[in-house]
């Protein structure tokens, strides 16, 4: 019997374990809509194929005295019909199960992932390979040319399975002094954290001081969105589909990025739906930034940092264009190589603090949980834009919308675009959809065609849906 490979879970991933709750199991879903009803058997074959190449996805989560671990397993994933609500819990302490699932419903192939395993970009790689494998099986004829290309080496495919357990992007980028015992294996290479190659130049005391200055000022009270919890704590997901070009045109007209334009719209819709915000007049959003853009990494593990942007109403100009500009001017300096590097160094320093390392894991959970609650108090909403998805051929021409849902502790939206369709998926632990209504009406008022699909969450809605 061989000893299983394992890698330690980094703090960035640990926080998902500490922060998960009944309403927010820290699961996200990526779905691709194909041009026919999904064939479960072919999808299973495609999954088997893809799963073999993604060693990281073989991992189960185990706990040690000081850390959680991702450990290699022999488990085998099964494709199932989509019978649970979106982003249903995956990880349950004490159970050795895989940290992802693949489900299908009508034309959709959905990949759901526990966030401690991977982030949106990592999961997008898996999904695009899965969908591509599926489309190749479904349309064997379309397969010829890319295969030929592969065999001649024109298309550079990884010679051996990558995406294994070991690439913890954070550790990879910064430092890898403490290599896990299995650091040479496929699993551990694939699962290593991504920060581990970033080391050795420790920041000056002045830099440390600047990091501590990132704390928010105390005088601005952040508006937090409340509501009625869904009856069984499921995530209320509402998908808005619209032509990408139309919305991009609006963002360009405001001279800001799409993400910041949508964030400003989100702020406006919260303000309108809450009837003017009341006394807490600052809205703040957390925006994850994919660090692979700045620090190239092959790791499918979590490798992102969040940037916080905010707007206080009643202090200067409050029209949409001004909010857009303000948000963009806050976002851009935080999303540079230097700023993110500073953030990462801070992460790594915390990760390596001796006092924290010898702290037993349950205590770490409590502390990370408190840190998470503290940061939640400073946030009204969250926004995540995965950007334009590009799928390999033949999948690309058979896939329409790609959708991205995240279980949420606060109202949130995730955007992604494919095939000229921008899908903005709102998720929230609350039944209310007022902010989504305002958001949609602002878009339709600008002449954008919006199609809405919503998860049924209340007893009445479900009864209507089943009749």
């Amino acid at each position, binding site marked *: 019997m061989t000893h299983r490979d394992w890698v330690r879970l980094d703090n960035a991933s640990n926080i998902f374990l500490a922060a998960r709750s*009944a309403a927010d199991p820290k699961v996200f879903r990526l779905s691709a809509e194909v041009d026919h009803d999904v064939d479960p058997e072919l999808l299973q074959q495609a999954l088997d194929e893809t799963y073999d190449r993604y060693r990281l996805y073989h991992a189960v989560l185990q706990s040690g005295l000081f850390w959680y671990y991702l450990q290699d397993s022999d488990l085998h994933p099964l494709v199932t019909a989509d*019978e649970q609500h979106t982003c249903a819990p995956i990880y349950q302490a004490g159970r050795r199960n895989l940290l992802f699932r693949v489900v299908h419903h009508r034309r959709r192939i959905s990949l759901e992932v526990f966030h401690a395993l991977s982030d949106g970009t990592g999961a997008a790689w898996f999904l695009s390979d899965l969908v591509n494998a599926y489309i190749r099986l479904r349309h064997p004829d379309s397969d010829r040319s890319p295969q030929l290309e592969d065999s001649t080496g024109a298309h550079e495919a990884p010679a051996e399975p990558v995406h294994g357990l070991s690439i913890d992007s954070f550790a990879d980028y910064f430092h890898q002094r403490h290599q896990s015992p299995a650091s040479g294996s496929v699993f551990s290479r694939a699962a290593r954290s991504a920060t581990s190659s970033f080391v050795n130049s420790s920041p000056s005391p002045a830099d440390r001081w600047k990091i501590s200055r990132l704390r928010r000022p105390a005088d601005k009270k952040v508006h937090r969105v409340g509501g009625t919890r869904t009856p069984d704590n499921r995530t209320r997901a509402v*998908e808005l589909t619209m032509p990408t070009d139309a919305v991009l045109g609006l963002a360009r007209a405001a001279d800001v990025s799409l993400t910041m334009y949508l964030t400003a719209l989100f702020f406006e819709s919260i303000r309108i739906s809450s009837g003017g915000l009341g006394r807490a007049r600052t809205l703040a959003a957390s925006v994850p930034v994919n660090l692979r853009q700045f620090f190239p990494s092959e790791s499918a593990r979590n490798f992102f940092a969040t940037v916080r942007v905010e707007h206080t109403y009643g202090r200067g100009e409050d029209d949409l264009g001004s909010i857009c500009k303000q948000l963009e001017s806050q976002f851009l300096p935080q999303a540079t190589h230097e700023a993110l590097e500073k953030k990462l160094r801070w992460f790594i320093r915390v990760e390596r603090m001796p006092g924290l390392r010898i702290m037993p894991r349950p205590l770490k959970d409590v502390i990370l949980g408190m840190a998470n609650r503290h940061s939640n108090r400073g946030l009204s909403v969250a926004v995540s834009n995965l950007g334009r998805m590009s799928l390999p051929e033949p999948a690309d021409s058979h896939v329409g919308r790609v959708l991205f849902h995240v279980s949420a502790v606060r109202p949130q939206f995730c955007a992604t675009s494919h095939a000229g369709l921008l899908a903005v998926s709102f998720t929230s632990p609350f039944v209310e959809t007022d902010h989504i*209504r305002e958001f949609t009406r602002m878009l339709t008022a600008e002449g954008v065609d919006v199609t809405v*699909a*919503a998860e049924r969450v209340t007893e009445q809605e479900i009864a209507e849906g089943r009749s």
Partner: protein
Amino acid sequence: MRRCPECSIAIEGAWTHCPLCAAPVVGAAVPSPLPTVPLTFSRRRLLKVLFLTSIAVIAGSLAAQLLLGHKPEGFGVLRSGWLGVTAMWLVVLMAVRKRRNVAKGTIYLVVLIGLVCVYWDYLTGWRAWSLTYALPIVCASSIAALLITVRAMRFEATEHILDSGLAAVLGLAPIVFLAFGWVTYPLPSALCGGFSILALVLLQLARGREVRLELARRLHV
């Protein structure tokens, strides 16, 4: 596709009212891309309440027994029955709670049963039957039980190896009782100690490397 004239949006799925503004919708329905999932109710909260209540009642019962004195003459059928039920409840509760990890559950049970026996012995005037007979029997049985379970359930080494090792180490405790002269009859403790030493030696010979790797993993700082 259905449309909401108020929001001027198209709606996927057979909604009779707009999911955003609740106004009546018009047009023909198309199927929703999202399934309609019936409400589910998690029993987790209920189980948690039951567990905590049970622990409170068990702890209360054990404490109450202490208040009623610890002389053999005051310990009648009623108190024996009460203590028996309490102990049984505790054991069942822990066995159910730890059902997903049999090896770890066994360790929990050995420790709990050992403590209950010692406490019971104390309540009935301390005749050292717990240390002489009960503990050696429980410890030795747990090692045997783990040996059988591990084979029967085809566990992976990583799942049980440390717990099996721990069970064998716990089995050394009766040797300590013997050394300090806490027992009234030496044979059970000696047998249990010998059995544990044998188990530890075998574990070291057959799986020494795995034990070390597993310890390194679990204790990794």
